[in-house]
């Protein structure tokens, strides 16, 4: 792809928030790649407010950027995308499929959901009680896909029961919040009545879940989650960690790919509606170590 260039182009990069590892890495990947390709970046951050995120697109419109990379967000952005493309500014989305976008760069969320479902079912031997942190299923489409397919897979295992009601994690201070909720859950489900805890759309809460399990001496309860950032891979790689399965994404690569797609677009290439960036299924301690290295986070001993 050496021929690609964004020389003289101004690219708006809008991200819904940057607190979470995934969001930030996708943002950084997009920004640095645009700059490497010789483009100028106008970055905007929604501070985790979908409406502010949407509003930010208006600012990009008024700045007269040549293209917009929009990372995450909910339906509030659609009219803004419509306005941008109406003004001849192509929109490249990340993890957000939109009729007004030129291209959506994303992980294969369907694959993530089914894979983690299978991994979890296998880990608990195909039967048992599982609890799930799942506050975002209804709020974000990608989370709906991941959690929905996880449940779809579990339908094949009549011996697995999803504990009701489902738990809700908080976005802010997620590990500590999940830790306390897990402790409460554990006192409700004594030894032998709970087999796994799954975090439906990401894995920050899993840090607190693992912590609670270790504190309560209940590491027989297994943990699964999605995203596979360096922090959680490190936990998985620990001896005897209850955190047994994950599907790692490559957010930096996703952001970077979106930026490349912008350049491809300007180079006259035709893009498919979606570009899928490879995900890395992670199973067990050794799997975590391998993934950590593979994804370029360094080595874990």
């Amino acid at each position, binding site marked *: 792809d050496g021929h690609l260039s964004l020389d003289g182009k101004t690219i708006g990069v809008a991200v819904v928030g*940057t607190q979470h590892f995934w969001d930030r890495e996708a943002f950084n990947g997009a920004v640095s790649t645009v700059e490497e390709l010789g483009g100028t*970046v*106008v*970055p*905007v*951050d929604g*501070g*985790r*407010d*979908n*409406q*502010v995120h*949407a*509003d*930010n697109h*208006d*600012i990009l419109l*008024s*700045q*007269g950027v040549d293209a917009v990379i929009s990372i995450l967000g*909910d*339906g*509030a952005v*659609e*009219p803004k995308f419509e306005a941008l493309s109406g003004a001849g500014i192509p929109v490249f989305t990340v993890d957000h499929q939109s009729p007004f976008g030129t291209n959506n760069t994303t992980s294969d969320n369907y694959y993530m959901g089914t894979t983690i479902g299978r991994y979890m079912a296998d880990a608990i031997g195909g039967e048992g009680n599982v609890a799930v942190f799942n*506050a*975002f299923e*209804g*709020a974000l489409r990608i989370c709906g896909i991941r959690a929905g397919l996880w449940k779809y897979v579990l339908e094949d295992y009549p011996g697995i029961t999803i504990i009701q009601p489902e738990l*809700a994690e908080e*976005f802010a201070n997620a590990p500590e919040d999940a830790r306390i909720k897990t402790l409460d859950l554990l006192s409700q489900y004594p030894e032998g009545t709970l087999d796994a805890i799954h975090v439906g759309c990401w894995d920050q809460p899993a840090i607190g879940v693992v912590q609670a399990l270790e504190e309560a001496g209940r590491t027989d309860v297994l943990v699964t989650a999605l995203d596979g950032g360096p922090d959680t891979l490190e936990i998985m790689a620990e001896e005897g960690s209850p955190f047994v399965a994950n599907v790692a994404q490559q957010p930096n690569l996703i952001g970077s790919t979106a930026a490349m797609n912008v350049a491809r677009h300007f180079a006259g290439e035709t893009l498919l509606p979606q570009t899928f960036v490879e995900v890395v299924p992670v199973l067990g301690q050794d799997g975590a170590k391998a993934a950590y290295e593979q994804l370029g986070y360094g080595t874990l001993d």
Partner: protein
Amino acid sequence: MTQPMSQRLLGVFPIIVFACLFAYLGVQSTTFLSLDTLELITKQAVPTVIVSLGLATVVIAGGDDVVAGGIDLSIPATAIICAAIIADQLTNQGASLPFAMILAFGAAAIIGAINAFLVVGLRMTPLLATLSMSVAIVGITKVITSSRRIGVTDETIVFIRDGTIFGIAASVVMTTVLVLVFYHALHRTRWGMNMQATGGSRDAAEISGILTRRFVVQSFLIAAFAGWIASVFVLARGSGSSPGTEENMLLEMVLATFLGAAFSPRRVVTLWGAVLGAVVVSALSVGFISIGVNVFWTGCIKGALILLVVASASVTTKGRS
């Protein structure tokens, strides 16, 4: 008893700071000082402006001691729940916009009444009463929406989002009218003066025969009303109701309203100060983006600037008393 020139200059110092800043932004960015940008800034400030009108009213009627005086932190939550109710009615229940709005109005009225009861009836600290109310309202909103986004495609809402009146963004025109109505009521009528007196000194007002409790009650009802109005613009901004938008709005509202006090030569919360505060905060966001400030740093610069202005306001006030 006219003030010397230097004191008058000190009085408007905070405004000068921002004027300089905007001039700087204008020089740095080719697009910042244009009518289009001004429209964009005001358009984005709309929901904050409206909830700030509500907060300013409560502060004016309750006094500007933020802990013991008047404050209503539940206005953004009110706006959010009203938006959720309207969105739910329109999209999920197939109701008409007027019906949905009436339902939301009922909810806002109940919230205003409860706030008023807690503060005036039980004499609860307003900060505490409205903060906890806000938590409860956000919780109830979650039940209404199941924490989901509800998109809205109603024509009127879309008009408020995209439409223009006399070539100016519809939301800006409507908000301007609303601001003028509020301004007239609070600063240009007897009722408004009595409301101001109530907040300025409860004892003094009571001794002047002003039924202060009634005014405080009214201020909370008006605040809820502002939340209700704001909900429509929140819906328009987000083309529906999205979960989790109250926190940011709360911070911006408080910031705008009390920053506005720094703009007022008397150093008290006023309506026009709150409106100006909201627009200035919005302009800062747009301005920083237009000169390409690192997104991680904008909060820091914003915070520092605001502290600078509030500090200068406080120093200059102390100097006069």
